[in-house]
């Protein structure tokens, strides 16, 4: 293996390189590109909800059909492309080999192929907007019959080519390709963890983030098969005239809901686990303390992983599950929050009586914990109780709930990681002022957007409606005001992400060069090499002597002890 710097041109670096770091950055940029549009979509449909008569620049006044397309694709992109693209693919590719002290993934070519599939999936998704339907509008959960037929569109399907070159087909193909990409990536992560650790690194000395990404990938592999089967059957229903989901022919639309949520619920943990992993790294570094209960966390997470395959029907309490089954699923759902409560408690115990450094990544990390626990997880518990869910299902309450889970995990924990590792992968520092501005605007206006949605949901505002003006009880009292607050906050929230994009690009080219390879004085291996690491990651391959979080260890003169440093 070569440790010399390869001289790489732009095209090589962004299209053909086999280096896991380049592939990680390719994932990052591709994901941010597509998520940019998803953010714009949210802004547009949100404006439409609160100010139906407002003429939105570039979009005009959107009609119900366009509203559906915007909401659907916002959800699809955020959940399937952004969340997994950042937390699994980007973090996994960039950090796993560096944290394990090795030169690259176990199968670099498979890794490259994985990115190509991901890129292809994004391209196919984009093409779906330019087909006659102008985008798929049947909801991000793709329930039949909406996902099978041409409901609400002016160009009814007649021929095979109408059906094949439809947004429905293309969206499903895009999803299938993305899954293939993530499967290849996941296999790589797992084999790399088990077979390519630095000399001396035992399995229980691996940084928690690596474990979390690998466990998430394994969970993904266990849960995605049935959904791929379901997607395949859906494609056949659209294109080959089968009737798997067609009740008039003996099929069952509920079948899709089972196959979808069998994957869909584990999917939220596939996103959550890497987020928790990032938090573990950022918190220990900034609390200058060893992680409380490393093994305990691993065991809890494994329990939650197994349980997560048995709770899917809590999404279907209203769609219709047997009441006895609903009880079981409800109880399991409530049980599954216990392991996560344990993980959060471990984090709090890590913070307890620590010499906290309130750096920018730490601000993101601590708000992630607070928001996720108090408003995300806690409301999820309520929704797990079938009785309450009957009332809250398909209202804004649910929308608020999953935004308080996904945004703390994907945006807050993701940003914590981004601000934490930025100087590692770019060799430069982010602008702190812009960083703080980005943090505070995001924090304030995320809550300004989310809290009103809880209240609106409790007041009975249904979700997935392209406007509420025609519903008298939703146009009374303070409810329109709440919608306006939510919308204005959402718009500012989306716009403040431009500060981040600007800061990112500006700092990559113009930021102050880092003076130290380990500015946070962290212990894990990625900090023990240059910034950015060379091709092959290390000039001299490290030998590991300690666990990952040796801070303030008695008998050591500095307050941190890198994994590869003998006492």
């Amino acid at each position: 293996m070569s440790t010399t710097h390869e001289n790489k041109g732009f095209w090589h670096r962004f299209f053909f390189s086999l280096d896991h770091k380049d592939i990680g950055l390719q994932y990052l940029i591709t994901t941010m590109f597509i998520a940019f549009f998803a953010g714009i979509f949210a802004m547009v449909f949100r404006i439409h909800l609160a100010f139906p008569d407002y003429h939105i620049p570039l979009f005009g006044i959107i009609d119900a059909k366009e509203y559906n397309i915007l909401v659907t694709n916002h959800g699809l992109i955020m959940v399937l492309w952004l969340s997994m693209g950042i937390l699994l693919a980007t973090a996994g590719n960039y950090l796993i080999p560096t944290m394990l002290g090795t030169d690259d993934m176990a199968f670099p070519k498979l890794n490259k192929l994985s990115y190509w599939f991901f890129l292809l999936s994004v391209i196919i998704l984009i093409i779906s907007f330019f087909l006659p339907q102008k985008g798929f509008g049947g909801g991000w959960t793709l329930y039949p019959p909406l996902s099978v037929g041409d409901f609400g569109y002016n160009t009814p399907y007649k021929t095979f080519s109408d059906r094949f070159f439809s947004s429905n087909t293309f969206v499903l193909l895009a999803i299938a390709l993305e899954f293939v990409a993530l499967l290849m990536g996941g296999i790589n992560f797992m084999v790399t963890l088990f077979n390519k650790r630095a000399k001396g690194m035992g399995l229980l000395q691996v940084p928690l983030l690596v474990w979390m990404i690998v466990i998430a990938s394994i969970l993904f592999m266990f849960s995605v098969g049935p959904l791929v089967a379901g997607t395949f059957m859906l494609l056949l229903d659209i294109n080959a005239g089968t009737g798997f989901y067609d009740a008039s022919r003996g099929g069952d639309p509920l079948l899709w809901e089972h196959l979808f949520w069998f994957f869909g619920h584990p999917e939220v943990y596939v996103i959550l686990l890497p987020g928790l992993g990032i938090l573990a790294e950022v918190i220990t570094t900034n609390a200058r303390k060893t992680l409380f209960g490393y093994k305990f966390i691993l065991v809890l997470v494994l329990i939650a992983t197994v349980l997560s395959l048995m709770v899917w029907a809590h999404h279907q309490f209203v769609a219709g599950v047997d009441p006895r089954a609903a009880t079981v699923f409800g109880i399991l759902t409530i049980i599954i929050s216990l392991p996560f409560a344990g993980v959060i408690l471990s984090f709090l115990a890590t913070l307890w009586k620590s010499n906290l450094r309130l750096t920018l990544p730490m601000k993101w990390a601590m708000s992630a914990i607070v928001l996720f626990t108090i408003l995300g997880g806690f409301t999820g518990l309520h929704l797990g109780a079938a009785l309450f869910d009957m009332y809250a299902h398909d209202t804004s309450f649910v929308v608020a709930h999953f935004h308080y889970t996904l945004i703390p995990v994907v945006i807050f924990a993701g940003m914590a990681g981004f601000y934490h590792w930025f100087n590692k992968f770019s060799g430069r520092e982010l602008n702190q002022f812009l960083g703080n501005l980005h943090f505070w605007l995001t924090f304030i206006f995320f809550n300004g957007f989310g809290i009103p949605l809880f209240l609106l949901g409790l007041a009975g505002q249904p979700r997935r409606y392209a406007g509420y003006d025609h519903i008298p009880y939703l146009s009374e009292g303070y409810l329109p005001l709440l919608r306006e607050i939510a919308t204005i906050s959402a718009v500012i929230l989306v716009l403040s992400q431009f500060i981040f994009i600007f800061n990112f690009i500006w700092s990559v080219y113009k930021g102050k060069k880092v003076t130290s390879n380990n500015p946070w004085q962290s212990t894990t291996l990625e900090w023990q090499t240059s910034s950015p690491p060379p091709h092959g990651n290390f000039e001299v391959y490290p030998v590991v002597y300690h666990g990952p979080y040796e801070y303030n260890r008695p008998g050591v003169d500095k307050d941190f002890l890198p994994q590869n440093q003998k006492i």
Partner: protein
Amino acid sequence: MPGPVMAMVMVIIVETMFFGGLISAYILAKIAEVEWPPAGQPRLPFWLTFSNMIVLLISGILMYRFFKSYKTGNKSLKYLTFASILGIVFFLVQGFEWLRILLFGIKTEPSLFGSFFYTLIGMHGLHVLAGLLVIRYLYKYLKNPSKTEEQKVHVVTAVALFWYFVVLLWPVLYYLTYLV
């Protein structure tokens, strides 16, 4: 566990879950139906498929023999060749039968029987095809002088695992579609 083998185990888990999804959907649809397979549609060719299943099982056994002997240092590819020839026979016979039924026989209406039959059997067929292509790749890999013997044994193990999966899946599908 060596890398290629671990990767293949994960692939097989995903595949098992994939077919698990299809099969459970099939069973649920069947339970909901009074008459299965639906009346007035041609019966499936039982004996031809049965003999074809035997062919595939033998192919699996030959693959196992190849794997055993390769691991103990006997580099002859004889058994691998026999296994793949039987695999090709299975694929052709089953493929023609699938097409024949598609063109002249069972319809996808009014019940789901036809839809499921084509999907399950067709999906398995695609996996046999994939298995054959992987074996084709194995020949090339084993001739590659830059790979070590150890690497070759690992890849042989991985390919054999995939082939066992394809072979053992068939009796399950045969039982579910042709017999029940």
